[in-house]
């Protein structure tokens, strides 16, 4: 079983975001991590490899700076990694990213292509779906469960009001949702070993998809202020609850 897992490096979801003069999200000085959704996919892929044998190869579009996320995935148990090296990667839209990743994955002989159903930063929520379309593979999106049975996979996928279980032939694309697997913490030994194993670096210019133009223009970015609040309704529970109900009815007018 050869599994290719698309891994993105993102700014930590806990981070305080700032914008630079050009309105871009400031990444300097930020803690960069493996995207949490990618991480669910890496964990399940490594588990499947441990159960069934095979290899797990990470695939990343990014600059050399993104190798930190790649090394984290290697420390979790992935066997190898490919970096499509692109200094301009943050300027590429989701359609361009999917085209590049699909072109690379097509040459890797994958039985299963995995990744996150969205990313914690830009949340474009379309790269895995577009890859499925480009590679003409079936898609299991928002997967919270995945098992391999013979030449097929059975995926449990989150739908709006429940969980849908479906069988897909291989090769297939599986986009991970929270719940697919609980990511392991690599040991120090695993981290050290991963550091010695590098990624195969392939320049973006070697890909035909590198010339696909973008159609998207971001017009503006603003920081969204958090909710304003902080008013505590005083008193022991019975008093505070009664007063809150009154405020909800008379002041907020939502009851």
């Amino acid at each position: 079983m050869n599994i290719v897992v698309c891994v993105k490096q993102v700014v930590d979801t806990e981070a305080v975001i700032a914008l630079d003069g050009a309105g871009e999200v400031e990444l300097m000085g930020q803690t960069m991590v493996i995207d949490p959704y990618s991480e669910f996919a890496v964990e399940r892929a490594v588990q499947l490899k441990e159960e069934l044998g095979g290899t797990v190869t990470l695939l990343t579009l990014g600059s050399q700076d993104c190798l930190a996320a790649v090394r984290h995935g290697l420390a979790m148990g992935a066997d190898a990694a490919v970096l499509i090296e692109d200094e301009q990667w943050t300027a590429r839209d989701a359609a361009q990213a999917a085209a590049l990743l699909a072109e690379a994955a097509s040459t890797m002989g994958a039985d299963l292509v995995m990744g996150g159903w969205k990313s914690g930063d830009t949340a474009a929520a379309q790269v895995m779906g577009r890859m499925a379309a480009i590679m003409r593979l079936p898609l299991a999106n928002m997967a919270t469960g995945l098992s391999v049975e013979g030449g097929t996979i059975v995926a449990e996928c989150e739908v709006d009001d429940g969980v849908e279980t479906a069988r897909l032939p291989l090769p297939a694309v599986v986009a991970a949702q929270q719940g697919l697997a609980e990511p392991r913490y690599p040991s120090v030994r695993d981290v050290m070993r991963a550091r010695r194993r590098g990624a195969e670096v392939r320049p973006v210019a070697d890909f035909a998809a590198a010339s696909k133009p973008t159609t998207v223009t971001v017009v503006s970015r603003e920081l969204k202020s958090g909710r304003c609040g902080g008013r505590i309704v005083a008193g022991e529970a019975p008093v505070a609850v009664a007063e809150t109900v009154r405020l909800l009815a008379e002041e907020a007018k939502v009851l």
Partner: protein
Amino acid sequence: MADMWVGVNGADEALRQVNAEMLGGARALADQAAAQVVAIVWGASAAGHAKALASWGADRVVIVESEAAPAPEAVARTLARLAAESAPAVVLLADGAESRVAAPLLAEALDAPLFSDVVDIEAGDEVFFTRLPYTAKVIERATAAAPTVVATVRPKALPVPEVDASRTAEVIAAPADAADLARIVQSVARAASERVDLAEADIVVAGGRGCKGPEGFAVIESLADALGAAVGASRPAVDEGWIDIQYQVGQTGKTVAPSLYIACGISGSIQHMAGMGASKCVVAINKDPEAEIFAGADYGIVADLFEAVPLLGAAVRERK
């Protein structure tokens, strides 16, 4: 300008409010551009919805002849075929599990850009789409220079249009596409709930780690039923297995925007706030006065939820 399309899902049941919101958004775009609004509807009972769709702003209703609700792959295929014939300027779908499959497939088939989980659409020389990336910490406005732009629209983000019952729409039938899918659905476990849809609920009562176990959610559910509200949960409660994942509100779960959100025993992480930050009024009940949730709450009650939530339920029942 070319037409504005709205894909209407779930037409076998009562139409969800998000369909009205999308048609209102499409109507505003079409009026700016002297274009038409086209609603594309699936399902055996689709014809019965034509009048409602017209009253919300559709000029034309295309009924795709299908027996049951189609798979998202089939939705994408039909929209791609129809769009290839008439090149709409915009195709809107309601953000949700179905469109998260259909929209990327459609966008790729049309070589079109896709804006997902859009919270605002503005007409101008171009069409501007607003999204909230970076765990809803950034407001991003973008546009795309493409013949057709696909977008998925967040429920309860766009205003509900006024109903104009005098409007009529031309009704057209279109054939469905073959559903020769590689993905075979074996079973669907629906959360058996009589309560309102979480994403569209007007009131949400949510429980977190403070619920301490599945029993704690009985307290949450009791208040929800008193209010006619939907039940939500924070990620720790879902991770602990106290409640199913489809109730999760937050970055990895559902985004809600009710008029009243009651957070019970929820600490208020950035990820949770990303999912409920657009609520009109937030009540927080937490026994830890330092809990972050209070900073974003309109009304905070520092108390044990097992005491305060039943009191709240009793007070609400008394009012009725």
